[in-house]
């Protein structure tokens, strides 16, 4: 394969154009990892196609040379999903960044995969519409990446994740053919292939066009910032809110360790340094409903011992409240060269004891661990600040990460809520699924990607007895039918 690499680059240049093909080591350097810095891979080349036909040509070229390929958006993924296999080709969709159509009458947008999440909402705003899934990385991440990861965000609680907003997809299949899945008027006849591709982490093909549903901007928004002495009271308040039948658009918790880091950073939001936990509640809907809802939440918070309940008076204050949440990654990032953003989900009612266990694990391994999380969904993000150049610390981060997953699974939870499996958690899939479950997943993958050339090594652990390097073996069905 290496012997053919020179020929590969020439063929890729012919396929996508000279200016759309990167192959110099200094150009490839940034493609060695995504937002998860501890997993790396070295691609032979990166191509930047501008349209679907160019993606098809790139895929066919890879096939001719027998090299694997991986789709990539902005590379903000946090599970190593866009990681290239050594010697493979990265197909980056950043130049496919046009909003192709806005149809306000039907509240639909058709976009290329490289459109940045926040740009779509900006484009829709003049029509009083927006794109609801709002990952915290929305200023950078792409719709293609969102589709691949089924990304969520703070407002997922009320509006659902990416899968609830995608109507149709165009996909370049791993054999280079083009497929259209779903229709803009709803599901197409047959299996819900759109539902199967959303969240498939770029392993079923390369998404080249996405048709999404837009939402009307809410009539009115209220944002509360609640301060508690401890995180358990904040979690209990979240439980009270869920049980009460209220559906806030967001319920986010920032723990004490994160508050301290934020207040020490440029993201300082004026939070009391000794706050045990901050809970941000956002409500949207008719103004008439929100007044009483705010009062109900105030009551619930008080009875759980909230020390402060602030309601944003204007957009500026709302932005300040959110800074306490959104600045968390940046602030934590300042504490050490690397930040590991973990991701797991537990039943909402189990949050208090799971959080306690998570913090205890961090302490036991001597790590700087803090929590900011989508509390309303039970979606935890333990963040660990570390230095990957310190092999001992890295080892502790990985060991603690695994223990955290075990605690979450034991509590009835799962090992990722929005960041995906990628390479990071592939080998932990067994914590949740047995061989038969994984085999069913493999059947779906093989229907699209039979030889595993498209984004190999992700999601499904390699069967015990087939060699990673043998592409034929990768498509092997371990549990044969009788």
């Amino acid at each position, binding site marked *: 394969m290496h012997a053919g690499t020179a020929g590969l680059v020439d063929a890729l240049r012919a396929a996508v154009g000279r200016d759309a093909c990167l192959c110099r080591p200094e150009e490839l350097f940034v493609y060695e990892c995504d937002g998860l810095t501890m997993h790396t891979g070295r691609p032979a080349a990166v191509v930047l196609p501008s349209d679907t036909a160019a993606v098809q040509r790139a895929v066919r070229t890879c096939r001719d040379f027998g090299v694997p390929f991986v789709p990539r958006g902005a590379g903000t993924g946090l599970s190593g999903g866009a990681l290239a296999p050594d010697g493979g080709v990265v197909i980056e969709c950043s130049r496919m960044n046009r909003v192709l159509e806005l149809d306000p009458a*039907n*509240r639909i947008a058709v976009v290329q995969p490289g459109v940045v999440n926040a740009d779509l909402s900006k484009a829709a705003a003049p029509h009083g519409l927006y794109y609801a899934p709002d990952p915290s990385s929305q200023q950078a991440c792409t719709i293609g990446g969102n589709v691949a990861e*089924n990304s969520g965000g703070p407002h*997922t609680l009320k509006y*659902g*994740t990416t*899968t609830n907003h995608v109507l149709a997809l165009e996909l370049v*299949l791993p054999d280079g053919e083009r*497929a*259209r899945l779903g*229709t*803009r*008027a709803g*599901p*197409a*006849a*047959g*299996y*819900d*292939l759109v*539902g*199967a591709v959303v969240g498939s982490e770029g392993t079923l093909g390369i998404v080249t066009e996405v048709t999404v549903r837009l939402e*009307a901007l809410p*009539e009115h928004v209220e944002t509360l910032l609640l301060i508690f002495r401890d995180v358990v009271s904040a979690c209990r308040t979240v*439980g009270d809110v*869920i*049980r*009460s*039948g*209220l559906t806030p658009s967001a319920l986010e918790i920032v723990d004490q360790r994160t508050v301290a880091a934020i207040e020490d950073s440029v993201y300082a939001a004026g939070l009391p340094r000794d706050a045990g936990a901050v809970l941000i509640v956002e409500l949207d*809907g008719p103004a*008439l*409903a929100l007044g*009483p809802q705010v009062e109900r939440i105030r009551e619930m918070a008080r009875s759980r011992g909230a020390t402060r309940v602030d309601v944003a008076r204007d957009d500026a204050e709302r932005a300040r409240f959110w800074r306490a949440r959104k600045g968390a990654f940046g602030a934590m990032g300042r504490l050490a060269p690397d930040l590991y953003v973990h991701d797991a*989900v537990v*039943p*909402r*009612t189990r949050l208090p004891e799971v959080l306690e266990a998570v913090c205890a694990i961090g302490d036991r391994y001597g790590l700087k661990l803090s929590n900011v999380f*989508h509390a309303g*969904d*039970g979606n935890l993000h333990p963040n660990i600040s570390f230095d990957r150049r310190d092999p001992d610390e890295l080892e502790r981060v990985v060991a603690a990460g695994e223990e955290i997953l075990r605690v979450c699974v034991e509590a*009835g*939870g*799962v090992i*990722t*809520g929005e960041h*995906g499996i990628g390479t990071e958690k592939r080998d932990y899939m067994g914590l*949740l699924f047995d061989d*038969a*479950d994984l085999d*069913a*997943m493999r*059947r*779906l993958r*093989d229907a699209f990607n039979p030889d595993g050339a498209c984004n190999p090594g992700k*999601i499904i652990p390699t069967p015990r007895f087939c060699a990673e390097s043998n592409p034929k073996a990768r498509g092997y*069905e371990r*549990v044969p*039918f*009788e």
Partner: protein
Amino acid sequence: MKGRAELEALRAALGARAVRAHTPIEVDGVALGVTVAPADADSLSAALQALSQRRLAAVVRGGGTRLGFGNPPRRADVLLSTERLTGIDVLDAEDGVAQVWAGTPVAALREATRARGWELALDPPGEGSTLGGTLASAATGPRSLGFGPPRDSVLGLSVVLASGTRTRCGGRVVKNVTGYDLAKLYTGSFGTLGVISRAWLRLRPRPERELVLRAPARGLAKTLERGVAWARRPGVRALAIVDAELAARVDPGSRGAEEGLVLIELAGDAPVVERDAERLARELRAEATSERALERVREVQGSTPRPSGMRVRVSALASRLAAALEPLARVGAQLLVYPGQGLVYGFVPLASANDAAAARAALRESARAGDGTGCIEDAPSWAKHGDDVFGASGPELALMRSIKRRFDPEGVLNPGRFAGGL
């Protein structure tokens, strides 16, 4: 069923209680006289293993309310019923999730969740609909405007594959991207990939106030635009428009429905429901009616004209609904529209093969005009006439076949019944 010997062999393998011979039930021209009814997941697994070993094909049956929905089976030997797979294992009122067996009637599940302060976000038509059948056929009713489609309620599934292999996907939590989202694939797959045995469901909070209103329509087409606008308002959980003929069935006492009727359900905080009810009174001359009217809409939606008729469904863009109605109106269809979901139901009485051909042509035209899709939900076999009841499939059918081959290589589960003969 191929013969007495096969029946005895199944009985020997699964126990006499699980295998029942009866007067034949007709499924699209095929008479099935044996029902296999496993009592638990192990026995379901054993049943599928026994069927696939003997190369027998099964028509999977929940409540039987949508057995008429499908293409004629390519092969069918037995009915495989989920009737004994019933019960609610978990109803977590703190967390708003439930784990429920597939054969559980939706009506019973709805009552149980309401009693615990939660709402089941499913409202399929058809008395006797089961949870499994509702998920497998992705069946929706008027409240899907507020509830979303069934796939939104599914958190995790236990599925027994054709080979008898027991599998799970998803989980019990409300947010989850752990591996491929197979639950989406099984939901709406009409039992062609596996048999759903149990599901984890997400429940919705119960609204403080619910109110059903009715308003006169000024002709279907003219009411559509307002219907779409109202259906998009937060707090509107259902909005249906029916023509004059159906209006008499939906709300028998109603006056002023000579040109059709609009039914609207508001659900949410009391002050908002009251405000919206006032606005609707002003804008549409709406007045309160009983919740029964909405139930009757659901009944109408699941009905087929007698003695002989066709029920079709078209899914159209909101802006193209009026265009989608026309071809159906021309063949004398009674019409029910859910403008918020972009759904049109047409009920066409049939007296002859010519009527059926005209109805099928109108369905195709309607789907095209609506820039969407169309299907025949129910019709006598002769009226289906070999057309794919799910409408024409595109090139992505090759992908679907490839999936079917991998999940059910022997063609045990509902072979031929789904789109494109899957």
